[in-house]
């Protein structure tokens, strides 16, 4: 089993342990094995969305029903979803838990992902969203479970940012170069 498959299994296990039954997602590449698992899952309903802002709003509605949801996305989604995220937590104290890949982390070989690395933490801080960066697979499951406890206690969002061995980690820059 590759590291990525282990990360997928631990993520799914963490979501189940946290009581999540609905997972909204906008697919990207670093967590690419998670999305088919969400679609195939019998006990977690995967809901593909067109925009991260739409996804977090759906998750907010799920919270209001008494069920638990997660938004899975690339970290660039924090910029797309900033408006509803700000209003949901700061304006109404409706919490949403997000799992996001850390594009732009150390070793990022794609120029287009550089803004994601530069803006992610300032955006999360500006939105007053607590977050934790998880780089080891063994930490995924307990972190997801605790993220729900923290979010629902504080009535604020929580972001679990996956990087390192928890993702389909960056190949070398050379192998990505063009021409």
């Amino acid at each position, binding site marked *: 089993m590759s590291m990525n498959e282990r990360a997928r299994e631990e993520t799914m296990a963490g979501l189940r342990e946290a009581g999540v039954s*609905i997972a909204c997602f906008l697919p990207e590449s670093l967590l690419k094995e998670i999305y088919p698992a969400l679609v195939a899952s019998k006990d977690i*309903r995967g*809901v*593909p*969305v*067109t*925009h991260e*802002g*739409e*996804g977090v*709003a*759906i*998750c*907010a*509605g*799920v*919270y*209001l*029903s*008494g*069920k638990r*949801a997660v938004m899975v996305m690339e970290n660039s989604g924090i910029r797309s979803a900033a*408006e*509803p995220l700000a*209003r*949901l937590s700061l*304006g*109404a*104290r*409706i919490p949403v838990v997000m799992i996001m890949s850390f594009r732009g982390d150390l070793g990022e070989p794609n120029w287009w992902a550089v803004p994601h690395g530069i803006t992610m933490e300032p955006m999360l801080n500006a939105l007053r969203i607590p977050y934790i960066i998880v780089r080891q697979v063994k930490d995924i499951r307990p972190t997801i479970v605790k993220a729900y406890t923290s979010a*629902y*206690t504080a*009535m604020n969002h929580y972001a679990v940012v996956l990087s390192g061995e928890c993702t389909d980690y960056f190949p070398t820059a050379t192998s990505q170069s063009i021409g």
Partner: protein
Amino acid sequence: MERYECMKILASKLKDELVILSLGGSVDEWYNAAPHMREASLFQQQLGCVTPEAFGLALGLPHRKIVALDTDGGLFFNLGILATLANERPKNLFVVVWDNECYQSIGCPPTHSAKGIVDLSAIARGAGIEKAYTIRDLETFEQMCVEGLGANEVYVIVAKVSQSTAPNLKRKHSDGVEDKVSFVRYVEKTEGVTIMGPSEHN
């Protein structure tokens, strides 16, 4: 049509449903048109989030009819939700879009429906939502409310309403946090669930 008159018609059909609606001119109108639904209604402040949030509620409570009272400006902000609804096909979601062709709360500059070119119900049908209609008279509105609330599939009506608000209405005073807590406690009471439970230690 006058939105307030539409609201009174819709409100007369509601009992056990839950409602998500937008801020703006419709807040005080709904507050007065549906006094029996105050605890069951959540006023949400963000453009583009009313229908998605109602869909999330519908996902979580598949046995209960959920009503979204969205707006033209709000739906234009996130047309993608129509595609998501078409794919996910919730059986318990009724969406009413108050289309007054303007951003009413900021003085009524026009939305994209104002020129009569863009048709929100056609966009919904194009997305794959079969039951999506534009309504221009109260009699049809009432008929469509009955059909939409009784439908076993997602149902969208775009209600063409005037740009005026009903005068001399009692104002709603609560903010987003109070609204959320009130709504959550109502869902807890009527569903027998705990959403905001006690701390480990009090």
